[in-house]
C-alpha cells in the first residue's frame, strides 16, 4: 500500500515551501513556454535562457512562474535546479530520464533505458537524478504523474522554441 509519506517526501515539501528559481526572465534573449494541466487547471510558465545553439548551448538560467499543487511546484523547482549549467543535449537526456522515473516512454521509445549514454549521467553515479528521485513515489499515485511532469513538458516546449534560434 502506498502511503502519503511516499508522495510527500520532506525534500518535496521543502521545494514546495521554498521554490527555487521563481520568477521571470526578459524575452528575448530568453524564451518562454506556457503549460496547462487540463485536468486540474494548473498553469506554469517556464523561462529558459540558453547560451549557444541547440547542439552545444548551455542553460544559463531558468525561471518558473505560475500556480500548482505541491507536486507540480516542487517538481518545477527541482527541474530548474537540475538543468541550470547543463548543455541542451544533457537537458534533453535528463528529461528522458525523469520521464523514465515517471514510467513514461517518449514517443521515440527513449525511456530510462538509454539514459546511461548521457554525459554526466553514467552508471557509476548511483543517484544520477539527485533530489529528483524523491519524486519517484508519485508513480504510486498515477493521477499525480501529470502534476510531476507539467514543468518538464513545458521545459521541452521552451527547448523546442530555442532550437531554431541557433546561437541565440
Amino acid at each position: 500500500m502506498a502511503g502519503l509519506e511516499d508522495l510527500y517526501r520532506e525534500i518535496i515539501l521543502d521545494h514546495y515551501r521554498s521554490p527555487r528559481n521563481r520568477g521571470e526572465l526578459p524575452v528575448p534573449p530568453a524564451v518562454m513556454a506556457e503549460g496547462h494541466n487540463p485536468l486540474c487547471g494548473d498553469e506554469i510558465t517556464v523561462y529558459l535562457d540558453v547560451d549557444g545553439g541547440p547542439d552545444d548551448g548551455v542553460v544559463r538560467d531558468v525561471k518558473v512562474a505560475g500556480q500548482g499543487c505541491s507536486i507540480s511546484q516542487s517538481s518545477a523547482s527541482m527541474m530548474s535546479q537540475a538543468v541550470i549549467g547543463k548543455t541542451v543535449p544533457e537537458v534533453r537526456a535528463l528529461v528522458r530520464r525523469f520521464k523514465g522515473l515517471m514510467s513514461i516512454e517518449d514517443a521515440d521509445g527513449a525511456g530510462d533505458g538509454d539514459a546511461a549514454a548521457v554525459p554526466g549521467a553514467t552508471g557509476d553515479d548511483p543517484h544520477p537524478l539527485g533530489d529528483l528521485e524523491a519524486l519517484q513515489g508519485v508513480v504510486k499515485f498515477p493521477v499525480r504523474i501529470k502534476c510531476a511532469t507539467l514543468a518538464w513538458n513545458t521545459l521541452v516546449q521552451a527547448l523546442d522554441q530555442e532550437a531554431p534560434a541557433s546561437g541565440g
Partner: protein
Amino acid sequence: MTSGTTTPAPTPTVDWAAVRADFPFLERRIDGEPLVYLDSAATSQKPRQVIEAMASSAACGYGPINRSAYRLAGEATDRYEGARAAVARFVNAPAAHEMIFTKNATESINVVAGAWGRANLGAGDVVVLTHMEHHANIVPWQMLAADRGIEIRWVPLTDDGQLDLTDLDALLDGAKLFSFTAMSNVLGTLPPVAQLCRAAHDAGALTLVDACQFVPHNATDVQAWDADFVVFSAHKMCGPSGIGLLWGREALLDEMPPFLGGGNMIGNVTLDGFTTAPLPDKFEAGTPPITEAVGLGAAVEFLETIGMDAVRRHEMDLTRYALDTLGQRYGSDLVVHGPSNVEVRGGVLSFAFRDLHPHDVSQVLDERNVCVRAGHHCAKPLMRLLGANATARASFYVYNTTDDVDALAEALDGATDIFGL
C-alpha cells in the same frame, strides 16, 4: 414550486438508513475502511434497483427497439419507451415524445446549438449565458460564434456567487436565446429559473435550462419554469452514464432540423433524399443506449419512492450542517465559495483550505477514503472570477449523512499534519 429557491413542504420521514442500504458501493472497503463519497456533483453512485434492472434487462430482456416483430424486441421497446415516459413524468414534461434521449447533457446542449442554433442564428444574433456556466454550456455557443459570428453576452455574478440581475433586461435586449444553469456545479447556487425564463420571454428570447445539477436533487417542473429547452443527465441522478436528456417544446423540436443523420431518425429515404421521423425518433439516430434507458427508468422510480422534496430537504440539512461544522472547526482557514444561505444553494461546497492546493487537499482526504473533486470543475471562466485555478469540492446526495461531513472535517486535519500548517 417554481424554482429551487424555496424550502420544500414538510414530507413524511424518510428512512435514510434504508436508502443507504440500497447502495452496494457502501459495502466497498479500501484499506479496510468504508468510502465517504462526496463527489455526486461529478457523478452519482447507483442503487441496487438500477443495477439489477439493467442486469436483468441485458441478460434476458435485451433486443433491438422500434424495428422487429418478435416479442423480445417488443419487450425491449416497451421498456425503452417506459423509461421515456417515466422521466417525462419526473420533470412534468407535457408529453413523453418531447423527451429526447441523448448521450449526456453535453450532447443535449450540442443538439440545440447544432440543430436549432444553425437553423435560427446568424451573424450578430445574441445568445446570453452567465458567468457560472459549465464548459458544456459555453463551448457549443463559442463554436457557433466562431462559425456563424453570433454574439455572446454574459450575466455577471454578485460577490456571494449569485447571478447579478441588475442589467438583465439590457443583456436580454434583442437576444435570441438565454441559456443558463439551474444550479451551479461549483457554487451550488440555485438561480431563480422561472423568473429568468419570464425575463427572456419578455425580451422575445427562448430559454435553455442546464438542469444537470438541479434535476437529481430537486422536484423539477419544466412547465412551471416555462422553459423552452431543458437538459440533464442520468448518471448524476442514480442512473447509468451514457444516456442524457433533452426536453424541448414540441413545436420547437418539430421545426428544428435533425442533428445526427442515420437509422431510426428517418421517415423515408430515397436516392434523392430523406424525410425525418416524428418525435422523438427524429433526434435519436442509430441504436440508442437501450440498457441505459432501463437503468434511467429504474433510477426515476427509485428517486420517486424517496420523494424529491425529501431529497432536497435532506441535502439542505447536510449543507447547513457542513457549513456550521467546517466553520466552527476551521474558521477563516476554510473558505466556502458561493451563497451561505442554504435556501438558495444546493448541496455542493467548493472550498479553499488554508493555502493548500486542492489536489493536495483531495490527496490527503483520499488517505481517509474521503472522495472529493479537485480541479476547475469544467468552469474555468468562473474559476478566474473566484481568483482560483482550482477548488476542492464536496457534494452530497441521498446516501450521505452528517457522519460523512464529520469524516470530511476530521480528514482535513491530516493536511495540517503533513504540510505542517
